Each structure stands twice: as structure tokens, then as C-alpha cells.
């Protein structure tokens, strides 16, 4: 553990410059540049809002803003997009950087950190934009938003833990990445991002309880839409799940690291 932290500290300049390059190269030579980072998730929100608002709007109790559903969607999207981005990119990070890993000796743990960092910057930009949009539609920020740093931290840890495990496995069994694209889509629909948990029959809702991302998304909705603290139960479940996943991921990563380059 100590070595890993020392390696990260020693390569902090590389990590920072990689994150910067990652963000820049993604939008280099496009006219709108970094604007695309927030435009894409916003466009998705707009599409869902357009398609679903008529059906869903009536189901949001206790909120008298006519854009309540948009706020609900955005809160869920902020939580989901960070998780999904981290997992999707971690899945293939070792395979994608195979050439680099084969030829340069650097701490491999930098790769998930870079992905985490770049996704976090992305997510914070999206959050800032969302807050801006909320102001425009008459939904000022509340004190409950002070929970956000903790929530984002847990979300990131959860995504990184899961992503690192799957990323390591994917080096050896490439089917993992293929399967996971489908699983992630399924998980998205098993998470109340575009719908409310209340429209789900009770029997099925019990199953949803096992989805950690449900607790995550609900926590974000509580904070951003309802302006209240996230449920403690959910928060504890998430913290424990993230910690266990992350520790297991680091263990697996350390065991697998010497063999990874052999099969890349």
C-alpha cells in the first residue's frame, strides 16, 4: 500500500499531465472543444426529458417546480455518468495502454488514477453546468449540496474499484469488456435514473435494493432535487461496498501486475 502511494506521488507530474492531455486530446481540433464535455450529457438529459417528461412529471411528489423531472434526471445522470465513464474506461485501460506498458517502465497504478482524475474533472464540469441550469430554471442550490464532495468521492471509489477488477480480468479474458458493455446498459435501466423507484412494483423494488448504484443515484437526487441529506443506510452500504471493492481491486492488481505485460 505504501509503495503504491509512493509510486503515485513520484509520478504525480506524469499523472497531472496525462489527465490534462487526455482532456485536451479528446476535444482537440473540434470547434466547440471542451464544451462537448458537458454538451453530450446535457443533450442526453434533454432527450430523455423531451421523451419522458409527460409520463414522469406527475410522479414527482413534493416538488412544485415544473422542471422537477429535468432536475431529477440531471441529478441521476451526474451520478451515473461518472460511474459509467470510470468503469467503461478502466475496463480497457490496460489493453489500450498495452504498447506503452510493454515498452516503458512506470508504475501501472498511474493508469487507473489518470482515468479517475480525468473522469472526475469531467464530472465536476457537468455538475457545475447542472447547477447553472438549476439556477436558470429556478432551483437554487441548498446547503445539502455540501454532501456532494463525499458522494462524488464514494462514487469515484466505487467505479474505480469495480473498473480496476474488471480491467485486470479483461487483460486475460477479453470477453469481459464485451459482456460489460451489455451489463452496464442493463444496470442503467435497473437504476432509477430516468424513472422513479415509486413506479416499480414492490416485489421488484426489493431486487433494486441490491443494486449499489440505486443507492448512489437516490443519494444524488436527495441532495440535488429535494435538498435533503442522503439516507444514512444507503451511504453506509455504499461506503462499505466501495472500500471492499477498492481493497480487493488493489490486491488483485498487485497479484496480476507481473503477469499482465506477458499477455498484452
Amino acid at each position, binding site marked *: 500500500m505504501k509503495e503504491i502511494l509512493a509510486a503515485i506521488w513520484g509520478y504525480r*507530474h506524469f499523472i497531472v499531465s496525462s489527465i490534462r492531455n487526455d482532456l485536451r486530446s479528446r476535444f*482537440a*481540433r473540434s470547434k466547440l472543444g471542451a464544451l462537448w464535455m458537458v454538451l453530450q450529457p446535457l443533450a442526453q438529459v434533454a432527450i430523455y426529458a423531451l421523451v419522458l417528461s409527460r409520463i414522469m412529471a406527475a410522479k414527482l411528489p413534493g416538488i412544485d417546480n415544473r422542471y422537477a423531472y429535468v432536475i431529477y434526471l440531471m441529478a441521476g445522470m451526474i451520478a451515473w455518468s461518472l460511474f459509467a465513464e470510470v468503469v467503461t474506461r478502466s475496463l480497457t485501460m490496460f489493453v489500450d495502454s498495452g504498447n506503452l506498458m510493454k515498452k*516503458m517502465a*512506470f508504475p501501472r497504478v498511474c493508469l487507473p488514477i489518470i482515468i479517475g482524475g480525468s473522469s472526475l474533472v469531467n464530472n465536476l464540469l457537468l455538475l457545475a453546468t447542472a447547477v447553472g441550469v438549476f439556477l436558470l430554471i429556478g432551483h437554487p442550490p441548498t446547503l445539502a449540496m455540501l454532501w456532494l464532495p463525499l458522494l462524488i468521492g464514494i462514487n469515484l471509489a466505487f467505479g474505480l474499484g469495480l473498473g480496476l477488477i474488471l480491467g485486470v*480480468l479483461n487483460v*486475460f479474458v477479453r470477453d469481459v469488456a464485451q459482456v460489460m458493455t451489455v451489463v452496464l446498459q442493463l444496470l442503467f435501466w435497473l437504476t432509477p435514473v430516468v424513472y422513479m423507484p415509486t413506479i416499480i412494483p414492490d416485489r421488484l423494488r426489493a431486487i433494486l435494493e441490491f443494486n449499489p448504484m440505486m443507492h448512489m443515484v437516490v443519494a444524488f437526487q436527495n441532495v440535488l432535487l429535494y435538498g435533503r441529506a442522503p439516507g444514512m443506510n444507503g451511504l453506509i452500504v455504499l461506503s462499505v461496498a466501495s472500500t471492499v471493492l477498492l481493497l480487493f481491486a488493489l490486491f488483485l492488481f498487485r497479484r496480476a*501486475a507481473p503477469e499482465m*505485460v*506477458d499477455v498484452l
Partner: protein
Amino acid sequence: MNEPLLAVRELGKAFREYRSEWQRFAGWFGFRVSTKSESWVLRDISFSVAPRESIGIVGQNGAGKSTLLKLITGTLKGTTGTVAVNGRIAAILELGMGFSPDLSGRENVYHSAGLMGFSRQAIDDVISEIEAFAEIGGYFDEPARMYSTGMQMRVAFSVATAFRPEILIVDEALSVGDAYFQHKCFKRIREFREQGTSLLIVSHDANAVQSLCDRAILLDSGRLLKDGDPATVMDLYNALIAERENSKITIEQHAVGREQTVSGTGEATVESVSLLNGQGQPIELADVGQSVTLRVTVLACGDIPRLVLGYMIKDRLGQAVYGTNTHYTKQVLVDVKEGTRVQFDVAFDMNIGPGSYSISTALVSTETHLVNNYEWRDLALVFNVSNLSKITFVGQAWVPPAIEVFRL
């Protein structure tokens, strides 16, 4: 400081395959699993490099050179054994790794130096030197996608050698663009060496290994075949690449202390080699410019459809001074029957500088020893050249001048 800069102990590398990847995963959790197949690409490699010592690593393709270098730089982990490094290693093997086409040369310098573990501040101190060394002018601040391969190499080499490492790994065959820059690169490598950097050079070129290295290591099929002085190792390497089935290689201790390497399939053998003066008497010392005859007698131990004699004069370091063969002189012998003796008299003027020289002979069927190598004999003869009658000069060649001086 007696501690070696680099110590490789019983290093081995095996690539393992499992019946199923699940078994590999189970292995991480401490379960005992049997592997389906293991292929060892390196085995029992031990050697050390003292500070300031430079080593050449030679071997045929697939001998394990790159794997060894990867184990030393740390990109691969050894299956057995250890690699201990006391200092920073820089490698100029894969230049331009991690370059991003959308970043400018300057930004790529910061990024790839970061990949080598340097901080921004450290790079700030040398960025102007890097820019000056690369000599790509205004392109340094243009995106790397506008670079030619040569320009990218220039920038990459400049970063890779911006800080003097304790160990520098160089692939001698590496192309770093045009001849001018190539010279500049090797100048920098030599400077590093003079300042105390140990070089690890991978090369197929005998001259480069002999002129840059204090020692050489020969790898063959994953094993360390020979660790010794560059000239001996290169001789063995040459013998090795000519090796055919049922050919044998012998190493005999030569009178002067160096080892003589004889290899080949043995259909013909050199019985005697001598250097004769104008009166036909054998000599060991020749004057610069003296007319001499190299007499080689050959015995055919089998029927040989085509026999070519090649010879090479090598200097003390084993570098070729002059060599040719009877294929080029259009004197190929055809249908030589078993038991025949052939005498070759090679007359020439000893137009080479003072020093100790050796002669290697080759009995082959074509102009190279790679088709049929009947016998290759290094250090077949050792002789000295002294300047007894000519004006004082230095160098390897006797190029008699006619100097005219005019006072204007």
C-alpha cells in the same frame, strides 16, 4: 565503490499458459495450479556491470536480447532470479513512446519526461537544451502530428538523453533520422560514457561493439553462451550465425592469450597459414609497405563442389582492416575431390599502420559464410607491423603522401 551498478542473478523468464484463465486467477489467491505449458525464453542469466563499464549484448534474433532488456528496465518481471539496479536506467530503444499527436513538441517533452519520472521543475531546467539539441526550429511548438518521423525521433532522443543516466541502453541499429543527427546522437552517447555512464548496447555490428564496449555477452536460445572480451565474443557470434547442423565449434586457447574460434561443417580445413617475405621466409614482423605473401594450405576432407577462400586482416580490437575472397577475385575452385591439398598464395603490400594484427580465414562455397561454411577460423595467424623505413605517421592505413609546400 565495489558494488556493481547492475547485478543480474540467475534470471529466468518463462511465459506460462494455463488450461484455463480461471486457473491463472486461482493462482493469485494462493491455490496451487498446474500450467499447461511453460516456454522459457531466458534461463540462468547471471552477469554484472561495474560502474563505468560498457557491455555489448549480441545474439541472433530470438536469442532473448529484448526480453533481457525488458527485464532490466523493469517492464517485464522475471520468473526466477533477480535484477538489482543501483541507479537510473534510460533506454533509447523505443523512441517516441507516449507521444501524443495533438500536443506540441514542447508539451510532449514534458509529458514523456514525466513518464520517465521527472518533475516539471526538472524539465524546466533543461527544456532549452532539449530544444537546442533537437534542432527542429519552430516546429518545436507545433503539434507533433505535423512532424516527420525524423523530427519526432529528434525530439524523442533529446528527451530520452536530457538527463545523464547511470545506465544507458542503446539499440545500435536504432535509426534516429538523418546521418547528421545519427552522428550527433552517438557523440552524446560517447560523452555520457566518458562522464561515467555504463552502456548496454544491443548490436549486430562487430565494429560498434568492439569500439564502444569493454565486454560483450552472447545470448543464444535464452542462455548466456559467453561473457568475455568483445573480440572473442564477436568471433564466437560470427561462428554461431554460420552454424549448421552437424557443424561444430571449438574454442582453443591461442598462444597470445586470446581464444581461437574454429567453426564449420568440416568438409575442408586450413592446414597451415603463414606470412612470407620476398625471399619466401616466414615472418612475424612486417615493415609498413613491405611486399608479403600470405600462404594458406587447405585440405579437402570431402568432395566439395565449390571452394572459396576468404581472408580478413583484423586489428588488435578485432575490427576488420581488409578482407576479400576468391569469389570476388573470380578464382573459385570447382569439384575439389576428397584428399586434395590446395595452396593459396595471396601477395600484397603491407600498407597498414603499425600494430598487432590477426588473420581470419574462411572456407566457404559462395561470397558469404552463411550458405556453406566449411571452416571459419579466427586468429589463424597473428603478426605485427612496425614502421621501420617510412616517415612517422599514425593511423591504420599507409597512405603515402607527396606533400608540396609553397611559400607565397
